[in-house]
């Protein structure tokens, strides 16, 4: 009886604590962020192309930062999704048990490497490599940051997609083989479509990691504040900007609030992405019955 009381009354409390904490964070960020627009135009914040918060008067155009965030995340996804899926298919369906038992933990271990390590690796090895191979004036660019983010989100995408692929009931495959389909045809037409809801979850988690990543993009993105000319320009995404400037601004000032406004912008972007991902997730889950 006592045990049950613990389970029934205390466990929900922990659940509520998480929910309350989440709401508290969101509400704080939004109230702090909205304060910006008492003294600065929301329109100028969203569409302005210059972020010079320390000038007099301050210029708080967040568009270049938003564009940078989108560029590095999209570059990361363009690289990480195909590679992650290929890894998942290889581990889940093609590799023999021995190889699988070695590869799967390694991929999962990759997901737990701290981002500063990736950033360090990026500065020391990847940035010079990118500079040399692509003949760029500087190696720290949005593309480089995207590349590092791809490495960071690849294990998440690969590991969760692999779970989804492995979870497809073998009876679907048997049915396909019995119709005379090859392994490849079965994989493409039966297994992957059936695993699509899980793969969408994998991609949204990977994207979440990429778009929210701060340390690595701060280190390898190049830090330029202007509007990026191309993906090979140095740039500074929203996360890196908040991290770099938060410590140097007086609490309660316009710049301080503007950084919260940036956080709101990022939060909204992630929310929109998650809603879209959830929509497709639901759609494909329905197809599965």
């Amino acid at each position: 009886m006592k045990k049950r009381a613990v389970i029934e009354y205390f466990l929900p409390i922990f659940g509520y604590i998480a929910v309350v904490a989440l709401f508290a964070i969101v509400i704080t960020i939004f109230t702090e962020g909205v304060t910006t627009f008492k003294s600065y135009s929301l329109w100028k914040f969203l569409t302005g192309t210059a972020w010079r918060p320390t000038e007099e008067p301050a210029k708080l155009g967040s568009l270049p930062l938003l564009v940078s965030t989108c560029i590095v995340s999209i570059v990361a996804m363009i690289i990480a999704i195909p590679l992650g899926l290929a890894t998942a298919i290889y581990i889940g369906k093609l590799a023999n048990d021995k190889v699988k038992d070695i590869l799967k933990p390694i991929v999962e271990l990759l997901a737990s490497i701290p981002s500063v390590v990736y950033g360090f690796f990026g500065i020391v090895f990847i940035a010079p490599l990118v500079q040399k191979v692509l003949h760029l004036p500087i190696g720290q660019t949005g593309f480089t940051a995207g590349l590092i983010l791809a490495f960071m989100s690849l294990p998440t995408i690969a590991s969760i997609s692999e779970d989804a692929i492995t979870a497809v009931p073998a009876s679907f495959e048997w049915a396909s083989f019995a119709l005379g389909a090859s392994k490849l045809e079965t994989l493409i037409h039966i297994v992957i479509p059936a695993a699509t809801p899980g793969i969408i979850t994998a991609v949204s988690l990977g994207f979440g990691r990429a778009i929210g990543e701060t340390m690595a993009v701060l280190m390898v993105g190049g830090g330029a504040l202007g509007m990026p000319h191309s993906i090979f320009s140095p740039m500074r995404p929203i996360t890196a900007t908040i991290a770099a400037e938060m410590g140097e601004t007086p609490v309660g000032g316009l710049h301080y609030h503007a950084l919260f406004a940036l956080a709101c912008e990022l939060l909204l972007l992630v929310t929109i992405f998650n809603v879209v991902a959830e929509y497709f997730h639901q759609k494909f889950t329905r197809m599965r019955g």
Partner: protein
Amino acid sequence: MVKIEVKDLKLWFGNKKILKEISMSIPEKSVLAIIGPSGCGKSTFLRSLNRMNDFIKGVKIEGKVYLDGKNIYSPDVNVFELRKKVGMVFQKPNPFPKTIYENIAYGLKIHGIKDKKMIQETVEKSLRDANLWNEVKDKLFDNAFSLSGGQQQRLCIARAIAIKPEVILMDEPTSALDPIATKRFENLVEELKKDYTIVIVTHNIQQAARVSQYTAFLYVGELIEFNRTEKIFTAPEDKRTEDYITGKFS
């Protein structure tokens, strides 16, 4: 006419011998029922007729299985073409997580049929032949999982016959169905035998008596008796067959 000739078929999983020197001739356009207690190798035998055992690790197969006089285990056999000729229906209905239409069109597409009109016609004909058309004609693009278990199993039949096989293997196809769905399924088997050679594994002895012309009794990997169904059920030659069909053991 003999459709399938099995000669000295032996099969091992690892060191365990599952099938022991099985030989039989399966006549064309008839229903052969394979009966026997659980674990006697019925399903394994069935899957050796379309080489579905190839996927199982540590399997070793010896002996020959001739389909229209051609050994399906000879190295030059195209196993995909073989499975096109020898279709299969499984124990639990296993439609793909796709629409009813796509479930049937899939087999046609992988065998290179692209003509949309032809696919449409084949989908309709297969569903008609599987006695499912009237129930699904207005919802061809619904998910196959929206169908009942019995309908799903008939969809699996439709899917199998869409690619025009010559033989259909059925592995306890009604074990997950209720009595009414089972009855409908058996009626369907009755009709299908006009065009196809059917081999059906069943746990249900009455079902074997109802649907088959030939019956094979397997016991611990051995073929004990193979004969016309009425002979097996009225005057079995082996004591073990008699004991099994009279329910003395199962």
